[in-house]
């Protein structure tokens, strides 16, 4: 029988190994799997390469994971946001690596990693400092940059609703990178607000087919990152 539901966040992240490439969903707070990230802090895996659009806020979630020195390198499009303090400090000290990728290129690299496409050409970043060191090639008289598919070991994802096959629905703009990160990771770990019986999700409306999901854990009331930050909460 297929049952991807696991009982705890600790069980969910237990396989994450030192040096792993970990995708973390979310755009700002929306879609950030705070409970899974905190479980990864407890778990303690180190030297991680983390791929996420931002670098977390305050001292919770992704920012706390970075602050706990578990992240060797960030791959992201926008590492400084209003409440981002941890990453900038470590970056200025040279204690964390950064690979800066335009947001759409980041999204397409992740999707291609999941779709078995090793490389593709894109017009984004041509003629800018971010094309440096990359192959540039002309198609029909226009220049494009070669970018590589990004395949990960794990993905930590927040969604709204899941079933035991791992079929997922998301909530509004918290969807963002979730579906493509599910595709790209060898092992996708999901926190879901609601777990429903098979057949309760309309087969026409499934956003992430279960084939892309390894484990699901039920988090009925996820914390609000905004609220924790306004309370100056620190996970560490």
């Amino acid at each position, binding site marked *: 029988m297929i049952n991807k539901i696991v009982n705890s966040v600790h069980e969910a992240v237990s396989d994450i190994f030192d040096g792993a490439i970990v995708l973390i969903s979310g755009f700002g707070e929306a879609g950030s799997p705070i409970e899974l990230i905190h479980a990864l802090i407890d778990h303690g895996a180190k030297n991680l390469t983390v791929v996420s659009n931002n670098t977390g806020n305050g001292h919770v979630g992704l920012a706390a994971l970075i602050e706990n020195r578990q992240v060797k390198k960030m791959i992201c*499009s926008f590492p400084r946001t209003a409440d981002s303090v941890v990453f900038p400090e470590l970056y200025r000290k040279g204690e964390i690596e950064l690979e800066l990728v335009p947001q759409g290129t980041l*999204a397409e690299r992740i999707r291609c990693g999941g779709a078995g496409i090793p490389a593709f050409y894109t017009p984004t970043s041509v003629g800018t400092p971010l094309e440096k060191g990359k192959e540039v090639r002309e198609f029909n008289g226009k220049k494009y940059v070669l970018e590589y598919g990004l395949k990960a070991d794990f993905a930590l994802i927040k969604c709204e609703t899941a079933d035991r096959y791992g079929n997922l629905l998301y909530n509004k703009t918290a969807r963002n990178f979730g579906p493509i990160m599910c595709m790209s990771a060898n092992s996708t770990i999901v926190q879901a607000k609601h777990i429903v019986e098979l057949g309760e999700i309309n087969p026409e409306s499934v956003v992430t087919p279960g084939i892309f999901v390894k484990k699901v854990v039920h988090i009925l009331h996820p914390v609000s990152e905004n609220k924790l930050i306004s309370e100056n909460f620190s996970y560490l």
Partner: protein
Amino acid sequence: MNKNVAGIWSREQMAQKIAEDIPDGSYVNLGIGLPELVANYIPADREVIFHTENGLLGVGPSPKPGEEDDELINAGKKPVTAIKGSCFFHHADSFAMIRGGHIDICVLGAFQISEKGDLANWSTGETDAIPAVGGAMDLVAGVKTVFIITQHFTKNGESKIVKECTYPLTGKRVVNRIYTDFAVIDVTDKGLYVIKMAPGIDFDFLKKNTEAELHLY
């Protein structure tokens, strides 16, 4: 250069000028900050659909206080609403809309615009700055028409419209039209052409206060 000029356009007037130039039925992406103002000035008889790259087509007005939803935000991470007929999608589909040329117009801010239409708006190149690019390079590479909304001068009173950008580029030859507090300027193959000026601005003044060469049609 002179920072205090009478008879220039306010931020709201700049936004309004842009709104008037957005045709009925357009799909539009608004950058973070000043560009967001444009949404307030779409003429009532036009239906324009706003795209935000974090996965929503059909961005509505700001929510009422107390009705904000942490999971319904725009690219600037501000709470928004979704109109009737809106739809949500993931980031790869969202940037397929951008890169694939499906968005008609985007409105962005700028540090510098060159007379060839090069844009610098993501980094001042300072060595200790944390580089952050977001979706800006994708937008200028993919969207059909790129409008820039910006003050004519930097905070230090320097012209933002330059012969060559000195800041790191967001894209080469990507800007179509520039809306400043002084004027509206078209970027063409033959150079920069002024199409409108604020009431207190004349062409001589504008030329004197713009590093790049300007023309009149």
